[in-house]
């Protein structure tokens, strides 16, 4: 006997062994279906008595073990059930023959046998047979259980008869010597008549009867027989059988004490649903003896209660039995099984220490050379038993040994899968969890060396299993959790092999489900790299959402009828609970590391508020991007900067492409601009746009583009205030004075010499310093999608950097009275500060060509302006603005008026660029006054003809010429009275004015006129007459008497036209 049954337990001693086997070709599925049904009939209450019969079914049983059946009857195969397929009557005899052959194998010990035939129909089936049952197929066989019950009852009858037989034939006949296979040769030639021999025979037989009683459900009887047997055998030192008798005693006692069974689950199952009959049987046992009244021998018993061993005694007897067994090398299996049985009993008694001693003993029982499979089985069972007594570490140790045995080099086909499975089962024993979360609390405390070894083995086994994902996961786990325990070289090795594995199968963050139901959670590398500090950074300004303040209240009210809704609050809470982490790829393993799990960081947590999605706007412009960043004082974060270089006065269109690169439609857009403070004075609108055209393209779906045009117009001061240019007015033209010489002759003389004012070098330097910079920020506020309904928007800023190069300068401005008092000449010294040829033109005049660095004077005849007609509402403005500001505003308005009227433009033909030039900044008070239409309008009429401009009034010598001076008062106050004197003179055209004309011109009446005071918007006139005595060209200069009244008023108000009279010879 060499094949141990590691599943044995004490209560197996009371079972009858029945072998169920297929004959011929029966599919495994069908066989086990029937086998299962047969197994369900595992205990039977025998009809006439209260006894219970237990059956142990095996579908495989080595016949050599059967030979030990006399030694322990539960090892004896007493029943055989064969299952066969047979589809035709022709095959029947052959099948039946096979059944008989099968019977032969266990033939010597069989009490009875059955054949279950499936598939056969017809005549044969009709004949009733006790040993054969026919079923048409595997589905239609309801009577299987019933058949088995009958079969067991027939077994019982045989058993009972044998028991009675053996129990009664005591004195008369010679008792045969029962023996185990290896003893047979030892007894050859022994004296069979000796007392010693007889006692031995008796003892062994007693023991045998005890076994039979136990099997037959007569526990008390068996105890008595065992006791007697022990006494008999002890006296003859028949140790092997003494051991068996002691073990029988133990088994019976165990069955008595532990009706729940000691075999763990399988044992419990045996009693499932039938604990009641078992207990009932127990209850009736005391009376069993008398009711049966079979065995007079048992009357010599020493009291029943004493027959049964106490729990402590059971162990002692087991120890004793095992020590006897150990004397026989051939009884190794018996000894091993006895140890296992004892361990199971001790496990129930919770006496782990003693159990471990039994197990220790079992470990050292050397059976014959075991096959690899048997070794695995042996170690697994040892592991299970250690687990059973609560020695988890020892259990894990043996499980690991079993796992290693699965892949021992001597095995042709290593079972990596089984090895891996067993290794996984050892994890609890080494208190190793595969969840990295369990390692996040401080330094790891455990058996690092042992655990690392196990992890290495897991990695290796999973790799050999052909599951790289698994090995990557285990290896990452090893690296993450055991990092502190790895030496530098080991770290290197682990990292190296991890990289090798991940090159084929990258590590993921997916949990890996194992077939056994275990799930390997992902292993984020929170220790590689080490995170020391975490800080939340805000989104880039262009992506940051802003809350529309006004929308908040609105939003809540639209969503819910309640002012405060707990549901909304709850939702917010959920959003807040989302964890924050970061993503890494280390050695080919992708990790999502949550900040909460980081060992080195103690944050109280960071809160990220997540709002509904908003669209994303991307801006591209027609202008090049610039590296310039705006002044630091700008405050806003600018996502893009564009720059452009313009000449002063030039304008350019900036085309902006708005692309929605988000996932939500862009519904709203607001554009605002902010010009950064500059000391430059800026005239006109720097930036202007029409948003309507763009908004017409809205809502902008994702991926769509809209265009938006902005006009950039730079108009800085064209004067050159502080600088540099020498005064061109070296010809002595006075701005303020009265025109002393005839203005029409003074018409602009182009300064042809056009010399560069400054030496070239300094000129250039000057140019650079003149480049001025304007900066502005365009803000695009946009929103859309769900974020819009929640009241959020985004703000995208575009920085605009404009470098303004000087185009033309007005180095000097002055006025000259025109011939008409209603007009005047504006004299502008224009300087071309560019390096290109430049033309300057006005609305009315021809283009003036200026070379680079050239300065020329241009005169523009302009109608004087009636500034007083500008709408003024001092009542409104005056309250808020001080007079100075008011004055400033007025001046600006005037400047604009003048500018629009003049329409001065420059053009650089070579660059094809053009722009405006504005005089707004350089008009001083004096010039303005000159350009202003005086509120007193003077008209001089000669002979009733208005005399103005260069018109020459003609008259005849000798005739008196009527001269009328009219005054229209447009000023808001009354003026006058005035006194005027008319002074005639002759211009000799050489700078000499001849005022001595008393002989030539005579006044009719007084040469002095008087004007009365004129009320506002009133009119007044004074009349006089002149008499020219000689022909000639005369000029009349009307001069005011300087008195107090006239001094109050500005001199330009008294600008009277000169009168040119040509006296002709009287016509004949």
């Amino acid at each position: 006997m060499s094949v141990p049954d590691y599943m044995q337990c004490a209560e197996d001693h009371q079972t009858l062994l029945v072998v169920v086997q297929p004959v011929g070709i029966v599919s495994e599925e069908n066989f086990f279906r029937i086998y299962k049904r047969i197994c369900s009939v595992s205990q039977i209450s025998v009809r006439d008595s209260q006894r219970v019969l237990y059956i142990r079914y095996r579908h495989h049983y080595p016949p050599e073990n059967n030979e030990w059946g006399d030694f322990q009857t539960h090892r004896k195969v007493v029943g055989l059930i064969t299952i066969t397929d047979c589809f035709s009557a022709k095959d029947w005899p052959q099948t039946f023959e096979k059944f008989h052959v099968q019977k032969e194998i266990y033939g010597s010990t069989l009490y009875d046998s059955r054949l279950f035939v499936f598939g056969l129909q017809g005549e044969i089936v009709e004949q009733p047979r006790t040993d054969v049952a026919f079923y048409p197929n595997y589905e239609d066989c309801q009577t299987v259980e019933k058949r088995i019950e009958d079969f067991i009852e027939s077994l019982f009858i045989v058993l009972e008869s044998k028991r009675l037989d053996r129990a009664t034939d005591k004195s008369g006949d010679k008792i045969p010597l029962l023996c185990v296979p290896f003893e047979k040769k030892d007894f050859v030639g022994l004296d069979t008549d000796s007392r010693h021999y007889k006692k031995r025979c008796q003892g062994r037989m007693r023991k045998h009867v005890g076994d039979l009683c136990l099997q037959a459900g007569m526990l008390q009887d068996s105890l008595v027989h065992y006791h007697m047997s022990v006494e008999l055998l002890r006296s003859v030192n028949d140790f092997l059988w003494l051991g068996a008798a002691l073990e029988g005693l133990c088994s019976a006692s165990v069955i008595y004490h532990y009706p729940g069974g000691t075999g763990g689950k399988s044992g419990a199952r045996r009693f499932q649903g039938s604990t009641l009959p078992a207990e009932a049987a127990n209850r009736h046992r005391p009376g069993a003896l008398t009711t049966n009244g079979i065995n007079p021998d048992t009357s010599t018993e020493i009291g029943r209660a004493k027959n049964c061993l106490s729990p402590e005694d059971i162990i002692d007897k087991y120890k004793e039995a095992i020590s006897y067994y150990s004397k026989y090398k051939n009884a190794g299996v018996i000894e091993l099984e006895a140890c296992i049985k004892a361990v199971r009993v001790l496990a129930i008694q919770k006496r782990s220490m003693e159990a471990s001693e039994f197990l220790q003993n079992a470990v050292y029982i050397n059976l014959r050379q075991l096959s690899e499979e048997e070794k695995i089985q042996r170690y697994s069972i040892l592991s299970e038993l250690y687990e059973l007594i609560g020695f988890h570490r020892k259990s894990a140790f043996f499980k690991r040994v079993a796992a290693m045995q699965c892949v021992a080099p001597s095995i042709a086909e290593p079972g990596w899968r089984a090895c891996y499975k067993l290794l996984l089962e050892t994890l609890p024993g080494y208190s190793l969890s595969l969840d990295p979360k369990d390692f996040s609390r401080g330094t790891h405390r455990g058996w690092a060396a042992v655990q690392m070894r196990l992890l290495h083995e897991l990695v290796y086994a999973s790799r050999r299993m052909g599951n790289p994902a698994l090995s990557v996961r285990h290896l990452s786990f090893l690296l993450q959790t055991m990092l502190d325990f790895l030496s530098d070289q080991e770290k290197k090795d682990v990292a190296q092999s991890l990289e090798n594995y991940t090159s084929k199968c990258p590590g993921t963050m997916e949990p890996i489900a194992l077939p056994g139901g275990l799930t390997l959670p992902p292993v984020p590398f929170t220790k590689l790299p080490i995170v020391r500090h975490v800080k939340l950074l805000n989104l880039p300004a262009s992506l940051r959402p802003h809350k529309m303040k006004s929308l908040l209240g609105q939003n809540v009210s639209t969503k819910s009828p309640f002012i405060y809704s707990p549901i909304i609050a709850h939702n917010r809470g959920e959003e807040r609970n989302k964890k924050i982490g970061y993503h890494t790829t280390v050695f080919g393993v992708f990790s999502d590391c949550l900040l909460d799990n980081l060992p080195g960081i103690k944050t109280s947590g960071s809160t990220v508020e997540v709002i509904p999605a908003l669209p994303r706007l991307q801006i591209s412009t027609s202008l090049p991007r610039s590296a310039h960043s705006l002044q630091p004082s700008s405050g806003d974060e600018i996502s893009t900067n564009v720059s452009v270089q313009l000449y002063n006065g030039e304008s350019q269109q900036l085309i902006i492409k708005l692309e929605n690169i988000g996932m939500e439609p862009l519904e709203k857009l607001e554009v605002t601009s902010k010009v950064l403070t500059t000391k430059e004075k800026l005239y006109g609108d720097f930036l202007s746009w029409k948003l309507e055209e763009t908004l017409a393209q809205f809502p902008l779906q994702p991926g769509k583009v809209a265009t938006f045009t902005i006009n950039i117009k730079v108009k800085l001061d064209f004067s050159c205030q502080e600088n540099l240019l020498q005064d061109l007015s070296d010809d002595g033209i006075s701005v303020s004075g009265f025109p002393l010489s005839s203005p029409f002759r003074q018409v602009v003389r182009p300064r042809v010499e056009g010399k560069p004012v400054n030496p070239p070098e300094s000129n250039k330097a000057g140019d650079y310093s003149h480049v001025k910079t304007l900066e502005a920020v365009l803000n695009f506020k946009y929103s859309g999608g769900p974020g819009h309904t929640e009241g959020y928007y985004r703000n995208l800023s575009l920085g605009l950097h404009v470098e303004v190069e000087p185009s033309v300068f007005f180095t000097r401005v002055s006025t000259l009275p025109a011939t008409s008092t209603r007009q005047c000449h504006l004299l502008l010294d224009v300087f071309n500060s560019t390096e290109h040829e430049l033309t300057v033109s006005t609305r009315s005049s021809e283009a003036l060509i200026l070379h680079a660095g050239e300065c020329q004077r241009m005169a523009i005849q302009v109608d004087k302006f009636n500034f007083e007609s500008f709408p003024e509402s001092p009542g409104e403005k005056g309250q808020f603005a001080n007079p100075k500001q008011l004055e400033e505003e007025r001046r600006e308005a005037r400047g604009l008026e003048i500018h629009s009227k003049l329409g001065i433009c420059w053009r650089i033909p070579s660059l094809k660029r053009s722009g405006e030039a504005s005089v707004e900044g350089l008009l001083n008070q004096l010039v303005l006054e000159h350009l202003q239409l005086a509120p007193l309008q003077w008209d001089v009429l000669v002979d009733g003809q208005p005399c103005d401009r260069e018109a020459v009034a003609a008259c005849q010598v000798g005739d008196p010429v009527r001269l009328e001076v009219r005054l229209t008062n447009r000023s808001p106050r009354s003026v006058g009275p005035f006194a005027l004197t008319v002074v005639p003179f002759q211009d000799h055209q050489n700078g000499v004015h001849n005022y001595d004309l008393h002989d030539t011109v005579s006044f009719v009446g007084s040469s002095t006129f008087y004007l009365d005071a004129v009320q506002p918007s009133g009119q007044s006139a004074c009349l006089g007459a002149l008499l020219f005595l000689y022909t000639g060209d005369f000029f009349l200069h009307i001069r005011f008497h300087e008195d107090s009244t006239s001094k109050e008023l500005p001199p330009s108000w008294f600008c009277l036209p000169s009168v040119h009279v040509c006296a002709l010879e009287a016509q004949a």
Partner: protein
Amino acid sequence: MAVCIAVIAKENYPLYIRSTPTENELKFHYMVHTSLDVVDEKISAMGKALVDQRELYLGLLYPTEDYKLCRYGYVTNSKVKFVMVVDSSNTALRDNEIRSMFRKLHNSYTDVMCNPFYNPGDRIQSRAFDNMVTSMMIQVC
């Protein structure tokens, strides 16, 4: 001759483990680890005894284990365990000798605990303790 000396924390993880460098260190890890089953069992059995009567020395843990190595256990009142693996092949150590070795170990461990810079539960890295263990591993042979 002690071939392996280990100090095990109350929670059954090693605070200190040292074995003769000539042999496979992992083997001793396994050996000490599995011994803890018995230590636990002995302690739980002892739990009922009165504190002042309690014997700290646990005696032989696994008597007839392979390698002819015997493991002895010792537990302090704070449930810190000492496990010693002794090579019994050349010298038969008496129980008293083992006891005195454990007592020395306990004293040295107490000194470690008295160090204000030592955090209970951390691995023992004391040089004095190390030297003492070394002396015990050499001493008897």
